[in-house]
């Protein structure tokens, strides 16, 4: 896409998009650190993650303000308008992902007080890494305006769903085996659910990229796993 | 908190060299302009003072007022008051009557002495006066036998004496007047027998022969010019406006119309005398129209004025904003409706101004009229139109030319007077143009 006749318009658009990319990087780090804190039972790192969420929230507000300014002052049309709109939506998604990471950190500090449940934190960490990779690719597809990569991100959400379903069953088994595991497993289940929701947000960012590039929202035909619970259905 | 920046070097309070040069150039140009305007104003003032200085006196004239006994025995020998019979008495007879009356009056007042003969006394009166007296009597035969207060034109030299043109010294060398006669005239003035008053005769009267400058008037010339102007107005305005509208709004743009346009522009620059030759060849020699007639003069001036009117009208039509034309066409007005409902009314002030300026130009034109015989000496008023268009007549500018050709210095004053009349007419026409423009002018 060539430059605008008014170069200040280009600078504004670049600035707000740079903020989104920066926010994406911050959120990715949060996911990895939260998972790390959980597995390593590292209370300090967990506190660090909880603290850093503030900055992400502030950045989202800034992005929204910048986007509103852009719409008011530059009257963007067509692809410019789509940039302004997608920036708001992506920032919103990233902020939610940040909140989930913060929630994971909070729960991991509670879990530190309890006996460790074998192997499950490693599975959660792998799941978190998968989601982090999805988010990274979604942000990359945004930077490169790569609709194919975005579509790939979208397709990968099914893996996360499968991982969540597997964990769900695993936690059920643990809780049936020993009722003392119930508290820990409930926390771990919420963590897994949070990561699964992160994947949904990464997917939504990828959809924004597709809208931004093609001008059209992708049709709702992405692959889905059969849900394990009735309320899971309701949530989607 | 805002702060004031400090000036770095180039203060606005100091004029830099470039600005100084620019200002100097501007000041110089203003001076040139003012000098040019001043020169123009001076030239105009010079022209006006010269014309007014010598010409205003033409509007004042010396008259001799004496009681004249109209002796029926002399003036109506048959005694039956038949105007045809009475017409047999020529002006010479009336001159004698006037001379007798003059001598009688002067004797009574004790002004006659041995230095002034009866002939000299009669010589104070213009040679035109007997003719005027005769016309008066022939028009009113019942005056015969009575004594009337007759206001006779004074001789041109006597008139000149009171206007300062004739002095005792010049009279001593002049065979037409003597210092003694002038002294007598001076005394008569003191007694009120001789007075200076406004000269209607100059404006209404016909031209007079070389020996009677005091009787020379512009009546025939004014009438002739008026007839010609009517002609020009009636012919040139509709023709010119119609041609302009066609060329501006309807004519296709091609080589032929280009040629016509170039020719119209060129015609406006053709020397006016060429039109005179054309008029002579076409209207008089070929068309057989009478010489010196306002008809031929009007036709020639029409030809001369047409290009001016066409150019002015086209400029006025062009000045009508195209948006008005678009507006009319846009709601489905035809071309003719557009032109006549909108374009023409808006162009009217310009057209009228152009027409009047063209008319003024025609009014002041001399050269072509000389060639078609309007330079002839015409004493008879042309009849009322339409027959009058074929009668010989003079024209104002030609009359000026005629006056300047004559030997008697009194005609210089007449010529200047005629110029003043001409200028007044032109001024009036320009004023009319301004008034019309103001009147019709509309904003859009």
């Amino acid at each position, binding site marked *: 896409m*060539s430059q605008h006749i008014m170069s200040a318009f280009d600078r504004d658009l670049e600035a707000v998009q740079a903020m989104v990319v920066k926010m994406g990087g911050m959120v990715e780090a949060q996911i990895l650190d939260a998972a790390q804190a959980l597995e390593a039972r590292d209370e300090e790192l967990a506190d660090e993650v909880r603290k850093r969420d503030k900055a992400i929230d502030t950045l989202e507000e800034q992005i929204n303000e910048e986007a509103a300014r852009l719409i008011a002052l530059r009257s963007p049309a067509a*692809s410019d*308008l789509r940039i302004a709109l997608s920036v708001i939506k992506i920032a919103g998604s990233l902020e939610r992902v940040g909140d989930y990471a913060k929630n994971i950190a909070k729960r991991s500090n509670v879990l530190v007080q309890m006996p460790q449940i074998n192997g499950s934190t490693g599975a959660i960490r792998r799941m978190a890494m998968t989601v982090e990779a999805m988010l990274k690719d979604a942000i990359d597809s945004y930077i490169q305006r790569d609709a194919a990569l975005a579509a790939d991100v979208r397709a990968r959400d099914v893996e996360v769903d499968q991982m969540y379903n597997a964990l769900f069953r695993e936690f059920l088994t643990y809780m049936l085996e020993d009722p003392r595991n119930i508290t820990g497993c409930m926390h771990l289940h919420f963590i897994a659910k949070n990561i699964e929701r992160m994947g949904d947000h990464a997917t939504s960012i990828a959809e924004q990229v597709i809208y931004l590039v093609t001008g059209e929202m992708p049709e709702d035909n992405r692959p889905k796993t059969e849900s394990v619970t009735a309320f899971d259905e309701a949530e989607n | 908190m805002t702060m004031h920046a400090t000036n770095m070097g180039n203060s606005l309070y100091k004029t830099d060299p470039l600005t100084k040069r620019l200002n100097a150039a501007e000041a110089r140009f203003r001076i040139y302009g003012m000098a040019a305007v001043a020169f123009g104003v001076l030239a105009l003032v010079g022209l006006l003072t010269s014309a007014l200085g010598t010409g205003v006196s033409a509007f004042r004239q010396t008259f001799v007022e004496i009681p004249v006994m109209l002796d029926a025995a002399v003036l109506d020998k048959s005694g039956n008051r038949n105007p045809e019979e009475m017409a047999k008495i020529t002006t010479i007879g009336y001159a004698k009557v006037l001379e007798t009356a003059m001598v009688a009056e002067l004797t009574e007042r004790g002004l006659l002495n041995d230095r002034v003969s009866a002939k000299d006394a009669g010589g104070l009166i213009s040679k035109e006066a007997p003719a005027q007296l005769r016309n008066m009597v022939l028009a009113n035969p019942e005056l015969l036998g009575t004594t009337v207060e007759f206001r006779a034109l004074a001789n041109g030299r006597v008139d000149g004496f009171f206007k300062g043109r004739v002095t005792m010294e010049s009279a001593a060398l002049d065979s037409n007047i003597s210092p003694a006669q002038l002294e007598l005239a001076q005394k008569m003035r003191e007694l009120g027998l001789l007075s200076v008053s406004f000269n209607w005769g100059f404006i209404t009267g016909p031209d007079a022969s070389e020996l009677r400058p005091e009787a020379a008037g512009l009546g025939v010339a004014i009438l002739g010019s008026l007839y010609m102007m009517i002609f020009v107005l009636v012919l040139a305005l509709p023709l010119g406006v119609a041609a302009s509208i066609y060329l501006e709004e309807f004519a296709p743009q091609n080589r032929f119309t280009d040629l016509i346009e170039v020719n119209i522009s060129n015609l406006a620059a053709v020397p006016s005398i060429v039109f005179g030759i054309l008029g002579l060849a076409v209207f008089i020699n070929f068309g057989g129209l009478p010489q010196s007639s306002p008809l031929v003069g009007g036709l020639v001036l029409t030809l001369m004025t047409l290009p001016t009117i066409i150019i002015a009208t086209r400029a006025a039509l062009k000045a009508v904003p195209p948006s008005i034309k*678009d507006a009319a*066409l846009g*709601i489905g007005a035809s071309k003719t409706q557009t032109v006549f*409902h909108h374009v023409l009314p808006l162009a009217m002030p310009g057209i009228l101004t152009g027409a009047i300026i063209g008319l003024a130009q025609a009014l002041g034109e001399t050269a072509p009229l000389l060639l078609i015989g309007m330079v002839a000496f015409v004493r008879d008023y042309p009849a009322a139109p339409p027959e009058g268009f074929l009668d010989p007549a003079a024209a104002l500018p030609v009359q000026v030319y005629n006056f300047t050709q004559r030997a008697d210095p009194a005609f210089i004053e007449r010529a200047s007077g005629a110029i003043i009349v001409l200028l007044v007419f032109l001024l009036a026409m320009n004023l009319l143009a301004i008034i019309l423009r103001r009147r019709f002018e509309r904003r*859009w």
Partner: protein
Amino acid sequence: MNDMRLTERTVDTTEIKIAARKVQVYYGATHANKDVDVDILDKTVTAFIGPSGCGKSTFLRCLNRMNDTISVCRVEGEILLDSEDIYDKKVDPVQLRAKVGMVFQKPNPFPKSIYDNVAYGPKIHGLTKNKAELDEIVESSLRKAALWNEVKDRLDAPGTGLSGGQQQRLCIARAVATSPEVLLMDEPCSALDPIATAQVEELIDELRENFSVVIVTHSMQQAARVSQRTAFFHLGNLVEFGETGQIFTNPSDPRTESYITGRIG
């Protein structure tokens, strides 16, 4: 302040009022319009946008044959108004222009009274039998142009004495008075302030109930605000023509995209 807001009017029509096919316009040696195909729908506002000199005004002026007044202008192709070719030899442009009215860039009221401005069209077309009918047309036209309340007490005042926006609405009233079927507007708001512009835009949206409106505009926002369909012209070509929302959010041609987003290209 209701009249400053564009109220939603749903007009569903797919009836084609004017159909242009392979229209070529030449100005002397310049090829001003190349192969223009446009369908102007009835009771719809169609906007023509594009950079200066792109041929949008030229094409607009073909629709009521205003280009006929320019001798070097030549039009080829087919323009059908209600399935009749307006460039047919049998068609008199004067008659056509009564059906296809026009409003111009600069407000150009005649230097006559407000009443006479509006009454002129009906008068020359003989639309009325008497003064009462004429009065009625003048009033209804001024009402349609949303000007009646402002001028009803001074119909004898000169039209040129009104403000710019009022003058333009007077010109619209004048065009409406001959009850045209199509109204062409050549940048009708370019000489107006934002308030007057909004009033004229609201008026255009109202006129859509009765007329098919075609508007040429330099303001893309204006095209977006008032039109249902937008045509983008570039270098004499019709680049893109479609539903206005579509053109402004997701144009299909990169030239359209560059133009509406203000890019070099």
